[in-house]
């Protein structure tokens, strides 16, 4: 290691090496902070979607599911959005870690802090109305979105378990309806006496949730009628 100082000095001069400009490092650091903020915000979108899915769910029908409420909870957990949140939380962590001195923060604090920020911003987005239409957007964006997320719509696609949702096409008398379900199938619906006086509008075009039992191929006997309402409506 003969006179390394001279060697380095010579190399710097002969190769005309210059220190990279300060702005380059500032831009890099700023970009990392922006990526961190973006990741946290995208995590917030996932949280907003989760809040929507949880609050918009019809939990009261748990009796129609195998294993009751626990069964309904297990199939309704928004795994897709949890995965999205974890993905962006990981991205936030790695970006923060690469900022100047970002590595000084404990992993648990960064991950916890990022999730907390996502929850706060997610709540703001939720109450700001973001989840309205989010489902359709997500479904368009992610081809396998529907099988991954069990929503309120999926609950009312369960004629076999006694849950049917759709739009009234025709009303005949006080007991008979024709209904188009959420997948476009036509059902002949008969209201039993308890359902007749529910007070729910059953005029053509009304969107309803029906609880009862399937009768044959396209028949459905109704014991309870509820209007279709959503927290976004």
């Amino acid at each position, binding site marked *: *290691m003969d006179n*390394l*100082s*001279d*060697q*380095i*000095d010579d*190399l*710097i*001069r002969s190769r005309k*090496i*210059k*220190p*990279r*400009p*300060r702005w*380059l*490092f500032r831009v890099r650091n700023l970009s990392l902070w922006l990526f961190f903020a973006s990741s946290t915000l995208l995590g917030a979108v996932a949280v907003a979607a989760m809040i929507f899915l949880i609050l918009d769910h019809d939990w009261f029908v748990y009796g129609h599911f195998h294993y009751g409420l626990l069964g309904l909870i297990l199939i309704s957990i928004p795994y897709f959005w949890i995965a999205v949140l974890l993905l962006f939380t990981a991205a936030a962590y790695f970006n923060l*870690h690469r900022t*100047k*001195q970002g*590595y*000084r*923060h*404990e*992993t648990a604090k960064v991950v916890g802090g990022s999730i907390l920020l996502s929850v706060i911003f997610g709540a703001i987005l939720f109450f700001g109305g973001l989840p309205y239409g989010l489902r359709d957007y997500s479904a368009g964006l992610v081809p396998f979105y529907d099988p991954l997320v069990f929503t309120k719509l999926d609950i009312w696609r369960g004629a076999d378990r006694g849950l049917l949702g759709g739009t009234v096409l025709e009303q005949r008398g006080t007991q008979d309806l024709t209904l188009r379900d959420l997948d476009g199938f036509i059902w002949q619906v008969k209201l039993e006496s308890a359902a007749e006086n529910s007070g729910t509008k059953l005029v053509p075009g009304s969107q309803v949730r029906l609880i009862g039992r399937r009768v044959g191929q396209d028949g459905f006997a109704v014991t309870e009628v509820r209007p279709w309402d959503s927290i976004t409506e």
Partner: protein
Amino acid sequence: MEEHDYLAEKDEKLVALALENAGVYRFLVARYEQRLFRYIMTIAKITRADAEDILQTVFLKAYQNLNDFDPDLKFSSWIYRIAHNETISHLRRFRWHRTRNTELDETLAETLRSDSDIEQELSQKYRAAAVRLALQGLDGKYREVLVLRYLEDRDYREISDILKKPVGTVATLLSRAKRQLREKVAGEKFFTDVTHG
């Protein structure tokens, strides 16, 4: 300014001066070349020529990135980090396993002897030999942190800045490193043979 004045300047001041005048950088090189050379040789079993190549790259990279030096850190932590990263990159590039350098292991073993936790648990007579042998079987991450703490005499914050890990993680690593070292020393066949032979 005379050369003598440069030698008296603090690292951070020399960085600022080197950014204005490339010739000043040689004083930083002179100040750190021996320490970094020893550090590189300690964490990687490589030839002197390879260590010198790495060292040259370290100083050139440090110069190119001089504007990235954060004055909130010690310059020594910053340049040790570059040396650490460059050595690891070199090892990965050549797929070499980090092993030991016997001469430096002895220095480290001697240094570790004075650590009170270990001192209490090891016999006076065979401690250095056992520690030296145990170090050979230590995980790289544990060996690295022991080297920085006991051979390079870095405090937790400096180790944190060099390895880019939180201080809490450094403390955990050190604690585990010492525990693994104790276990290795305790289970060292040579040590057992010597003490019972």
